[in-house]
């Protein structure tokens, strides 16, 4: 009697309902994927109406020199965070191109501090993240459009920081860098 009751509780149809949970294997579709691929020609509506500069980094045929929105302290902090997640493994935290994965044998990317990349327009960085560049794959599936611009802004700041001298620091902050003063 007890054994029958115990066995009766072994049915699992409430544990595994027919509803497809994310990425669960499907018995319905031939390729067994419950997450369906997008039909060809799908246009993203994520960002409202289409904005050429925001989504391609270009104005007409020219790679944009300017950012499509204002770079506030918040955007900048977001850029730093995303850079450290997605780019630093290869490009390193300072952008020198000596991240951990490179030290394990990945192809070494160019430093951000070379003349050509210092002079590159902001839209170039956007384009590299979106479409990849040489042996660097695209990050478009993981870095949304606004984050790409935030990362580009952060790279700009890294570049400026490497060429900076003490004279660039506001007078009231210099003491913090040179040792004394409030921490």
């Amino acid at each position: 009697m007890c054994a029958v009751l115990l066995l009766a509780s072994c049915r699992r149809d409430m544990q595994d309902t027919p509803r497809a949970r994310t990425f669960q294997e499907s018995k319905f579709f031939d390729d067994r994927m419950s997450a369906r691929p997008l039909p060809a020609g799908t246009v993203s509506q994520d960002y409202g109406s289409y904005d050429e500069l925001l989504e391609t980094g270009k104005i007409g045929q020219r790679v944009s020199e300017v950012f499509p929105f204002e770079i506030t302290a918040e955007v900048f902090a977001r850029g730093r965070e995303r850079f450290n997640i997605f780019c630093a493994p290869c490009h390193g935290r300072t952008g020198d191109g000596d991240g951990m994965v490179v030290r394990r044998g990945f192809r070494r990317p160019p430093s951000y501090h070379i003349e050509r990349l210092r002079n590159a327009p902001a839209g170039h960085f956007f384009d590299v993240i979106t479409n990849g560049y040489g042996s660097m794959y695209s990050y478009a599936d993981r870095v949304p459009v606004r984050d790409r611009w935030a990362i580009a802004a952060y790279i700009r700041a890294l570049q400026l920081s490497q060429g900076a001298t003490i004279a660039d620091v506001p007078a009231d902050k210099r003491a913090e860098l040179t040792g004394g003063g409030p921490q």
Partner: protein
Amino acid sequence: MPQLFHRGANTIARASIYGGLGIIGLFFWVIYAVNDSPYFDFVGVPRPQPVQFSHKHHVQDDGIDCRYCHTTVETQAFAGMPPTHTCMTCHSVLFADSPALAPVRQSYADNTPLAWTRVYDLPDYVYFNHSIHVNKGVACITCHGRVDEMPLMWRQKTLRMNWCLSCHRSPELFVTPREHVFDMTWVRDGDQRDMGARLVKEYDIKRLTDCYTCHR
């Protein structure tokens, strides 16, 4: 009249009463122990995977952030499993002909997903959401343990209802500052209760113990 029960009968009676209780007790204890053992809740048991993917190598040795692969953990219910493209951002060059990675290259070439064995899997009648936990300061390590020390993924916590509730009743015993949610090596200095009480106020954490929070 001769005695029906000889004197030893008292002892036998006592022994059988207590013995009977003992056996019933043992029966429930065995059920409890079996139910609580890794055989049922899989705690600490690494699962076979199609590729010997090691979090220890990728997270600890190479310092890759969880969000590089589990991209939607901050924004959605589902933490996100990396598509093969993500593996290939590195393994197109690195270990490009390693036999250990053959299934990954195959998957990329055929455009068929890798089928990982699920390690954490709640019953379908339970609703769980990563983004709220991550944004309210519950660290990965609290629920998934030292992932950065797992050569193969295993389950760290039972995923039983009483486990969820132990935290939902008193979140101050578990919360971490938001900036350390993804950090596997961070150790708090000072008292968890003090810090917890402060963070619960700061992040406005509620005690969600109504059934419909998780069963909807």
